[in-house]
């Protein structure tokens, strides 16, 4: 049975709920601060998916489609709760002197991502940093760096040129790098510095 057909009527959608709740809950637990929040996010994601199921064209897997909805629900919840404004990306870009040399000094090479993510503070910092990117920048990070699609795919989805997509992605990544500096502040894999 095709993906769109599985979503088409309530009985089949119930099967989808039973099949994917565990996977979505595992992700929601990584992205929320409590079990109750995780449950709320999964419930909201399925409800949104059900209401917008006619938009699912079957190009992506059902699991990927549901995952994207869940991540957006979780990030939206972070934004609403924090009441913090979106980041001003201009202030988070690298600076250079008149010779084109970097102005700000860099810290030591960070530990491996997996090691850093063992700390709840790091997971919160990463989630919050992405949540507070301006919408267009957050979208391109989700498409390129989280879903692993190409810049051409991102440009198509966002209805912008590939050139604009490249600029937007770079500004978002540079801002995330700056926002995550405190979380990466520990000395780690020195090999990165030798590459």
């Amino acid at each position, binding site marked *: 049975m095709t993906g769109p057909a599985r979503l088409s009527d*309530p009985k089949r959608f*119930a099967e989808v*709920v039973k099949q994917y*709740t*565990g*996977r979505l*809950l*595992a*992700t929601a637990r*990584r*992205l929320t601060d409590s079990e109750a929040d995780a*449950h709320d996010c*999964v*419930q909201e994601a*399925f*409800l949104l998916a*059900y*209401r917008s199921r006619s938009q699912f064209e079957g190009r992506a897997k059902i*699991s*990927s489609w549901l*995952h994207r909805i869940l*991540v957006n629900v979780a990030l939206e919840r972070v934004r609403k709760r924090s009441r913090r404004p979106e980041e001003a990306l201009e202030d988070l870009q*690298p600076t*250079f002197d008149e*010779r*084109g*040399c*970097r102005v700000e000094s*860099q*810290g*030591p*090479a*960070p530990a491996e*991502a997996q090691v*850093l*993510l063992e700390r709840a503070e*790091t*997971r919160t910092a990463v*989630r919050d940093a*992405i949540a507070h990117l301006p919408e267009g920048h957050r979208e391109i*990070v*989700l498409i390129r*760096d*989280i*879903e*692993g699609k190409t810049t051409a795919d991102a440009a198509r989805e966002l209805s912008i040129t590939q050139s604009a997509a490249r600029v937007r992605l*770079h500004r978002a*990544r*540079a801002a*995330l*790098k700056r926002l*995550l*500096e405190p*979380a*990466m502040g520990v000395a780690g*894999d020195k090999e*990165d*510095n*030798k*590459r």
Partner: protein
Amino acid sequence: MMTCKDVERFLDDYLDGSLPFATRIRFEIHVRMCAECRPYIARYRRAIELGHKLLAEPPEGPASEAVPQELIDVILKSIDES
């Protein structure tokens, strides 16, 4: 001679592996010699990895997490009522 600013401009193409050969060599020579660009790139790359590892869809396989039946019931009920 490439500058740090040039490295910044070419960085994403470098990470994608899409820099033309000659540009990539110039890029790598600068990075090898530049004490600021090396840690900058390590941290830039790590920020991307952190986002990916935290938010990407988990690999296929049976869910290892316990799924509370009451959560499934609440979801199905909310769909019924929508």
